[in-house]
C-alpha cells in the first residue's frame, strides 16, 4: 500500500520533467526535419538514438573502449589517491615533513596538469600506461589538500578529553583525527575521481589507439556527429558510475553524517551489543 503511494508520487514528480524532455526532443526533431536547422553539425535526436542503439546494442563497439577508459581512470585514481593520502598522513604526523614537502605540492597544483600530457606520453608510451599516469598526476592535488586539511583540523576539547583519559598518540590519531578528516577526504576523493577521468580522456585525445576519447575524436573528425554524441554519453555514464560509487562509499564509511545511515548503524550496534551481553 505504502509502496504504491510512493510509486504514484514518483510518477507525478517525474511526469513534468519527461514531458519537457519529450517536447524539447520533438521540437528539435521537427526543426531539423523541416529544414529550420540545416547544418550537419546538429544531428536529429532520432539519429542520435539510432547511433546509441548501434554503438551499445547491435554492434556493441563501445564496450571495449568503455572498459579501457574506465580502467585507466580507476587505476590512475587509485595510484594518485594512495600517494596523496600517504603524503597527507605523513605531513600531518610530522610537522617538518609537511613544511618541506608543501612547496612542491603547491608548484604541482598551480601547474595545469594537462600541460604534462605530451611529456607523459613520451615517458610512458602510447598505451594505457601514459593515461594512467596522467590521471594519477591530475587527481593527486585535490585529494592531498583535502585530506591534509581534514587531518589538521582539531577539536581542542576533544583532544584534551582523549589525553585526560590517557589515550596514546596513536589512539588520538586513529580514533579522533582520522574520523574527523574523513568527510573532507571523501569530498577530495570525489573531485579527484572526476579529474582522473578527464586526465584519461585528454591523454587519449593526444595519442592513443583505444578508449572512448579515441572513439570520440574519430567520430568527430569524420563528421559523424550522431555517433560522436552517443560516445559522449558513454563518458557521462562513466562519470556517473564513478561518482555514485564514491557517494555510496561515502555514505557507508562516513555514516554519521547521514541521519538514516546513522540510525541504521546504531541499531546494528545495539543488536550486536545485546547479543554480546546475552552470552
Amino acid at each position: 500500500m505504502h509502496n504504491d503511494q510512493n510509486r504514484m508520487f514518483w510518477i507525478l514528480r517525474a511526469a513534468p520533467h519527461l514531458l519537457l524532455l519529450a517536447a524539447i526532443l520533438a521540437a528539435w526533431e521537427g526543426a531539423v526535419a523541416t529544414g529550420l536547422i540545416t547544418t550537419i553539425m546538429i544531428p536529429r535526436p532520432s539519429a542520435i538514438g539510432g547511433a546509441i542503439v548501434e554503438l551499445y546494442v547491435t554492434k556493441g563497439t563501445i564496450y571495449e573502449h568503455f572498459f579501457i577508459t574506465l580502467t585507466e581512470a580507476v587505476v590512475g585514481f587509485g595510484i594518485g589517491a594512495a600517494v596523496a593520502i600517504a603524503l597527507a598522513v605523513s605531513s600531518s604526523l610530522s610537522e617538518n615533513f609537511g613544511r618541506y614537502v608543501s612547496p612542491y605540492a603547491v608548484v604541482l597544483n598551480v601547474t595545469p596538469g594537462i600541460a604534462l600530457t605530451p611529456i607523459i606520453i613520451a615517458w610512458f608510451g602510447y598505451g594505457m600506461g601514459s593515461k594512467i599516469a596522467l590521471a594519477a598526476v591530475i587527481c593527486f592535488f585535490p585529494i592531498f589538500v583535502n585530506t591534509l586539511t581534514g587531518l589538521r583540523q582539531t577539536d581542542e576539547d576533544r583532544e584534551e578529553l582523549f589525553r585526560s583519559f590517557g589515550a596514546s598518540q596513536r589512539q588520538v590519531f586513529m580514533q579522533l583525527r582520522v574520523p574527523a578528516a574523513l568527510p573532507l577526504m571523501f569530498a577530495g576523493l570525489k573531485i579527484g575521481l572526476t579529474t582522473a577521468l578527464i586526465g584519461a580522456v585528454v591523454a587519449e585525445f593526444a595519442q592513443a589507439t583505444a578508449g572512448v576519447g579515441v572513439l570520440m575524436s574519430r567520430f568527430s573528425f569524420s563528421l559523424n556527429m550522431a555517433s560522436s554524441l552517443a560516445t559522449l554519453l558513454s563518458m557521462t555514464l562513466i562519470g556517473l558510475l564513478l561518482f555514485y560509487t564514491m557517494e555510496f562509499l561515502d555514505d557507508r564509511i562516513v555514516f554519521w553524517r547521514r541521519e538514516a545511515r546513522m540510525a541504521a548503524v546504531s541499531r546494528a550496534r545495539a543488536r550486536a551489543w545485546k547479543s554480546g551481553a546475552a552470552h
Partner: protein
Amino acid sequence: MTDNVKATSQPKTGQMVIHFTIFLALILSWELGAQMGWLDKLFFPAPSAILTSFWRIYVSQGNIWFHLYISLGLVFAGFTAGSILGVGLGAVVGMNATVRRFLQPYVIVLEATPRIAVAPLLIAALGFGATSKIAIIMLVCFFAPFINTLSGVINVDRDRFELMRSLGASKIQVLRKLVLPEAVPVIMAGERLALTSALSGVLVAEFIQRDQGIGTLILTYTRNLNMASAFACIFTLTLIGFLIFKGMERLDHRIAYWKNEAGLRRVGAKRARAWAAEQGGLARA
C-alpha cells in the same frame, strides 16, 4: 598569544635556509644524475639544459612570446565570456524555483560528463581556428561559476530575505543588496576554478588542433624530443598558474572586502571620510 601567531605565520630564517638547502640538493643531484648519465637525458633533461632553453625561447630566439600571446588572449576571451554567462544564468536560475526544478536533471548529467571531452566535437562543428578554441574554453569555464552562483543564491539567509521583502524591497533590490553580497565569496571561488580550467582548456584545444599557442609548442618540442624546451614551457605555465592564483586571491580580497579585517577597515574608513565630507558640506550650506 598574538606574538605567538606572528611567529608561526612568518617563516623563520632557519627554516628558509633548510628550504633552500633541500631545493639546492634536489637540483644538484638532478644535474649530477643527468651529467653522469644515470638519468636518461632524453626524458629527464638536466636543470642547466632547461635554463639554457629558457634563455633560448625567451631571449635569443624569443619564439615563446607569440605563442603565449595567442594562448593567453584565448584564455582571456573564453574565460570572460564563459564566466559572465555562468554567473548570469546561475543568478537567473537560482532566483526562479520552477526553472531550477526543470534544469536540475540536466545539470546533474552535465556535471558528470567530462566537459573537456566535447572538444573534438566543437572543433568539428565550428572548424579549426580561434572560434572553436574560445568555445571550448567557454564551456569549461561556464560550469564552476554557474554552480557556485546557483548555490550562493539558493543558500541566501531566509530571515534576511523575508525582512527585506516585508519592508517592500523589489526583486532587483533583494538581488543587489542581499543575494549578491552574500554570494560573492562563493562566486569568486567558482571564478578561481574557472580561470584554472580555462588554462587547461586552451591547452587541450591546442593539443588537438596543433596549429599555434603554448600547447602546440609543448607538443612540438616533445615530438622533437627537445625535452628541455618542453620543460621550460611547462615551468612557464607553472608561473602563469601561480600568478593567476595570487591575482584571484587579491581580487577576492578586494571584492569581498568584508571577509577580511584589513579590507573592512579600508572601506570603512573611506565611507567614514565620505560621510564626514558630506556632513561638512551640509553644515557649510
